[in-house]
């Protein structure tokens, strides 16, 4: 039932470029889609392990830079008179590199999360994103610093019979983001609805009890952070090849906050939460653009956010699910079978 709804949603989205071939609508939807993928990845960490990463833009940015640099190629000095050189690679290699680099840093952060939790973890993730931003700003030889990496090639796709086709047009980019987003959603769903997902939720709800039944804390936190970082890296890579220019601002705190807001208003710890929250907060700024001055827009945006958090603290998706006819049937308690005591 829910799966049918999901595929209908994907089909409806896939039809958008055909029904409304308006480039503005498509570009808004494509950027929203990229951030929804970021929110889906954040939800795995924030919603299912309960760990708040306020440096999630770091993985997004790492994916963007790694992917862009691999597809542009680079030639840099790494000290001791050595040079590191890479010729431009096909975009799909960059895409995979973006996922791998972000995933590797996710592994590091996951190991760290074992030692520090809660507020300390939050502070470390913020620092992590800030340090990366500083590196991106100052390592001019590699990243061009504030001058930005330009001329990033568009994403390309190998199609049977046509070879590698670059995806220049808006509908193509949109379909690519929709495809990657669907994959990310399915990946998270498979993980969450499995023994791994149960272990993550058990750790979130009661770590002491979870350990007592044999759930290995580090192991499962590392799996979650690597997957989450890898998906965020994929979103960053899509971003780099879509806008085709990136600067150190991809590491800005506001991008993390945007993803956190999407996850929390949509419903953290639910599969559809980041999608619903992402559609609202990804599309609203652009929908309001035509009808209200920017100042009024920002106020409306802020008020809506406060209202959502006040009245739907668990998010939109759980609230809507609560309105649907309850599946829980109240059953009479049956006493345990009692042996007569001797």
């Amino acid at each position, binding site marked *: 039932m829910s799966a049918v709804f999901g595929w209908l949603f994907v089909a409806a989205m896939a039809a958008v470029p055909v029904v409304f071939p308006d480039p503005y609508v498509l570009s808004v939807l494509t950027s929203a889609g990229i951030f929804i993928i970021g929110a889906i990845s954040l939800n795995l960490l924030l919603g299912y392990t309960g760990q708040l990463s306020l440096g999630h833009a770091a993985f997004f940015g790492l994916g963007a830079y790694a992917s862009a640099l691999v597809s542009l190629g680079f030639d840099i000095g790494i000290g001791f008179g050595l040079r590191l050189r890479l010729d431009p690679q096909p975009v799909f290699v960059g895409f995979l590199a973006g996922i791998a680099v972000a995933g590797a840093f996710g592994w590091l952060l996951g190991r760290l999360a074992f030692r520090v939790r809660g507020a300390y973890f939050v502070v470390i993730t913020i620092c992590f994103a800030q340090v990366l931003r500083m590196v991106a700003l100052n390592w001019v030889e590699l990243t061009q610093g504030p001058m930005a990496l330009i001329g990033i090639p568009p994403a390309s796709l190998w199609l049977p019979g046509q070879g590698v086709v670059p995806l220049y047009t808006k509908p193509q980019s949109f379909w690519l983001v929709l495809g990657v987003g669907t994959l990310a959603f399915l*990946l998270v769903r*498979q*993980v969450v609805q*499995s*023994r*791994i*997902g*149960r*272990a993550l*939720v*058990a750790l979130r*709800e*009661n770590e*002491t*009890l*979870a*350990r*007592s*039944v*044999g*759930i*290995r*804390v580090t192991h499962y936190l590392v*799996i979650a952070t690597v997957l989450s970082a890898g998906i965020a890296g994929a979103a960053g890579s899509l971003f780099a090849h879509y806008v085709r220019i990136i600067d150190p601002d991809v590491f800005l705190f506001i991008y993390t906050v945007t993803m956190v807001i999407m996850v929390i208003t949509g419903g953290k710890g639910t599969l559809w939460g980041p999608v619903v929250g992402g559609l609202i907060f990804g599309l609203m700024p652009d929908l309001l653009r035509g009808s209200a001055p920017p100042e009024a827009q920002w106020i409306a945006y802020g008020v809506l956010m406060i209202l959502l958090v006040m009245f739907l603290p668990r998010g939109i998706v759980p609230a809507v699910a609560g309105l649907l006819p309850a*599946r*829980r*049937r*109240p*059953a*009479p*308690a*049956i*006493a*345990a*079978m*009692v*042996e007569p*005591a*001797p």
Partner: protein
Amino acid sequence: MTALLEVEHVAVQIGGLVAVADLSFTVEEGQVVSLIGPNGAGKTTAFNAITGYMRPRQGRIRFRGQDLAGLSPERIAALGLVRSFQRTSIFGPCTVFENARMALHLRGESGLLGALLRLPGMRREEARLREEAFAMLDFVGLTARAEVTADSLAYGEQRRLGIALAAAAAPQLLLLDEPAAGLNPSETAECMALIRQLRDRGTTILLVEHDMAMVMRISDRIVVLNQGRIIADGPPAEIREDPEVIRAYLGTSREVPHAAA
């Protein structure tokens, strides 16, 4: 009979306080052994040391001959030694059925690849775990409550669920920390029946409990702890008559003239 659990000269300090001074006892396979003593005697601390939640300062703990020193609670659980908690410990917002499935973690082995690809082996495992979860709930009489959240269970039901979670993965040795705390007489009787059934299924049980009537009726052996030391160790009939134990419980003696029997 072989000793399943051997505790030798274990000492645990919490800050500057000596919670357990010198603890030595064994638990034989197939028995129900109770660890009793007045409040603050160090019973829960002993549990924490055995299950890896606290590091003993001295001594050695062996389970099936294997030294447990330095092992994490999750590793110890994987060896077949699982505990329950004194304070009600459940996965509150999750349904009772989900609670049971989470506690069956060690009964499964599928990893990331299995989860992503939904291989036939993983599907079979999921189906088996689901059945085991229902069997477990049936065993503790919570089948009818499977779909409600654990938070909304009555107190006695939550306690039963707590035992079910600890017993779910069929450990060889089950440590129960005050399973009857706060239960009324009929619930206590149910709890006792449950412990007997667990023993009959082949689970060895080490019990901490304040309900003396229950302890006397259910235990094969009783170890009495006072102020971090063992003052008696023997079958219920013997413990009942032990002057040292009577004195410790009446609180007339501060000095303990002799150590473990």
